[in-house]
């Protein structure tokens, strides 16, 4: 389920969309990116994890949006003109990811992605495919499916759609 082989390469490198959260630059395979849209009104969905900002209307489709800063346990940032939503085509359907700023589409040569370091980055290494270098800068290459699937396992299971204990509602019913 993790994309161990990112974007197939053309002439020695795959394309990535790079974006930033605070001072760190991230990269996500361009093949996962569907479009980039400006920040818009998000309808919060109750009883979802904090990093799930809510849902938006993307041309008539309801698309969930997550805040990557919250997901990565970074402090919240002010929304700016540059804040935007990257719509990715994930296994769970279209998803919006809020980032501080989108930078560019960069080609990272295959040899320039090294395994993630064990420490020293703010993000759990589980979410990283590796550390890439392009244009003299360093990017944290994200495994976006991992980032998005973790929630299913940890978040939703604990919330559980039908988690209401029938015994509880039963007793509560006697109140009437």
């Amino acid at each position, binding site marked *: 389920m993790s994309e161990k082989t990112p974007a197939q390469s053309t002439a020695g490198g795959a394309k990535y969309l790079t974006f930033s959260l605070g001072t760190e630059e991230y990269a996500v395979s361009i093949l996962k990116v569907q479009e980039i849209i400006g920040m818009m*009104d998000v*309808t*919060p*969905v*109750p*009883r*979802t994890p904090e990093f*799930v900002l*809510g*849902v*938006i*209307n993307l*041309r*008539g*489709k*309801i*698309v*969930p949006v997550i805040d990557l800063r919250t997901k990565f346990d970074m402090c919240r940032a002010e929304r700016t003109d540059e804040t935007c939503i990257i719509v990715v085509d*994930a296994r*769970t*359907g*279209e*998803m919006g990811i809020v980032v501080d700023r989108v930078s560019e589409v960069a080609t990272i040569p295959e040899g320039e992605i090294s395994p993630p370091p064990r420490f020293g980055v703010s993000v759990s290494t589980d979410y990283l495919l590796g550390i890439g270098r392009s244009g003299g800068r360093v990017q944290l290459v994200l495994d976006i499916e991992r980032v*998005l699937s973790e*929630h*299913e396992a940890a978040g*939703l299971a604990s*919330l559980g*759609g*039908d*988690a*209401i*204990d*029938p015994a*509880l*509602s039963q*007793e*509560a*019913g*006697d*109140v*009437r």
Partner: protein
Amino acid sequence: MTAPTAPRDLLTLLDCSDPGDLAPIGALAASADAAAAVAGAPAVRALLERAARKLWSVAEDRARDPVESLAAARRLLAAACAGEAPEPEPAGHDAGAAEPTPAEPAAPAPPVAAIASPPSLPPPPPSADAASDAGIESDPELIQEFVSEAQEYLAAAEQALLVLEGNPDDRDAVDTVFRAFHTIKGVAAVLGFAPVAEFAHRAESLLAPVRDRRVRFGGDYASLALRAVDMLRALVDRVAVAPAGSDALPAGFTALMDALEHPEAPAAETPPAAAAPRDAEGGASPQPAPPPPPADSGVSHETWVRVRTDRLDQLMDIVGELVIAQSMVAADPGVLSQRSRDLARKVAQVGKTVRELQDLSLSLRMVPLRATFQKMTRVVRDTARRVGRQVELVTDGEETELDRKLVDALADPLVHMVRNAVDHGIEPPAARIAGGKPPGGTVRLRASHAGGNVVVQLSDDGAGLDRDRLVARALERGLLESGDGLSEQDAFQLIFEPGFSTAASITDVSGRGVGMDVVRRAIESLNGRVEIASVRGRGTTFTVRIPLTLAITDGMLVRVGGQRYIVPSASIRITLRPEPTALRSVAGRGELVMLRGEAVPLFRLSRIFGLDGAIEDPTQGLVVVLEEGDGCSAFLVDDLLGKQQVVTKSLGEYVGKVPGVSGGAILGDGRVGLILDPPGLTALARQEVWTNGAAFAA
């Protein structure tokens, strides 16, 4: 110029045609249609029709992969050639039953035992080799078509068999069954599904003497034929799941194969004593007209187009967007300004058309309840036999239409209810006679439209519900502490409690204590409701009300804090601004609002959903009272923003099921609003109060 109609000619023409030139392919497609129209064997006809469809898709430039479609058409034509040769159909075999086979005088032979030696039958269907050569079996689209067509044929056959049980001389019914077995046999053979073909062949053989009027239909024939239909269904389902067919055969396959070959050896499954032919009721009451022969049950293709449901969903989505886009234009200040009255009129005109389009696209998803009701005929028959009752099912309003998804979702709860009605509702014949009733009971299933809802009513003329027995059982099960003061209606509601069962013994039909609570939950999950009415000794009536569709929700838009939510109108009992005197607070148990002397628990939506900035004082806000199951709960909101019809959408797989929320909808301003799920919300609210209020114990 006459078009060639022999499959072989078509094949030759196809091989000569230039795939780049679409005109001749259109002509070829028309020829294939013509060939299909005159084809003798149904299997060949089906193959030709499919070939024609493939060719048309290329000719009209609709094919996603024209080369592949042409190749598929070629394979189909080849199969049609192959299918034609080795199966010399006796004349009249599928031309309907217009003329019985002249060789056999139609003397009504004594049933069953008459077949001393099985008549010689047509040779087994063409071997799978022909198909393998043609490479047909690998085409998933063909297999899917076969599966869905076979299912239709089997449904029609089942229905016809049930008609036959009541009227063994119904020629149309015999032919329908025969045609189903025969067509499935042919197509399965061509596609290389040997077990299906063989089985269908046996089933066909079983009925051949009936069709030829050498044997009267009845008794064991009926049960055998029905079991054959079930087996074929299982086989076809198996094909749908694993077309490669490497799986084990369904249980009982061999035994049933043998049974079909020797129908005179009665199968143990059917105790003949339990059989309850319609005639048993005698001439006192006029027999209700037997259901019309299912001649129209989807088998003719001329006026029908098969459309994938996801395309219909897509259409609904796009039209929904159009509606929103139009209302945004209509609300635009430029349009509303005095200067452009003409423009406003035109925009309104567009709006009218768009809404018509929405109604139409909704209606495309509607299907009649007929198939579901037909299934119930079988359920009644089988249940009645198993529990030794005589029951007749009378249906009415089966043409009532509702959303396809709801029809599917309604089937299971309805099966439960119908079984219950037969098993628990209708008394055994002896008890009925003792009670001055005819020995055979009647179960009525009625459907109709009422407002935006569909009402399905299931009534029986059985014993009715016994309040005292219900209460006794509830006490015994610990579901109730005391039955004192419990109204009859409240006692009836007990049967929906989990773990409640009134059946004295546990049968395999019902009485496991899972039935009705599951039924109620299933119906509530469809935004529906079940009501019970019962008169002791006279019978019980269950009334199920569900919306026409889940694709559109009729709702009330409410505001809480900065958020807006849609509350389904169907669950709203009343909205009101409470007087201070109507509010009560119970220590540790939360708040109550008095509603015409009834204390209704009051919950704050803002607290349940953790919203800021909402009105805290109930007398300043509004209270929406929701009806759910057997009770009410009230929810405090800031304001009502008006009625709105919204297109229901899922929040996506990532968000999944959110307690208290059934989905989302795009509101008039383009933002998303969440649709509340009243039963879920109430459960959530009670849980909230329970966890927050420490001293909840009674």
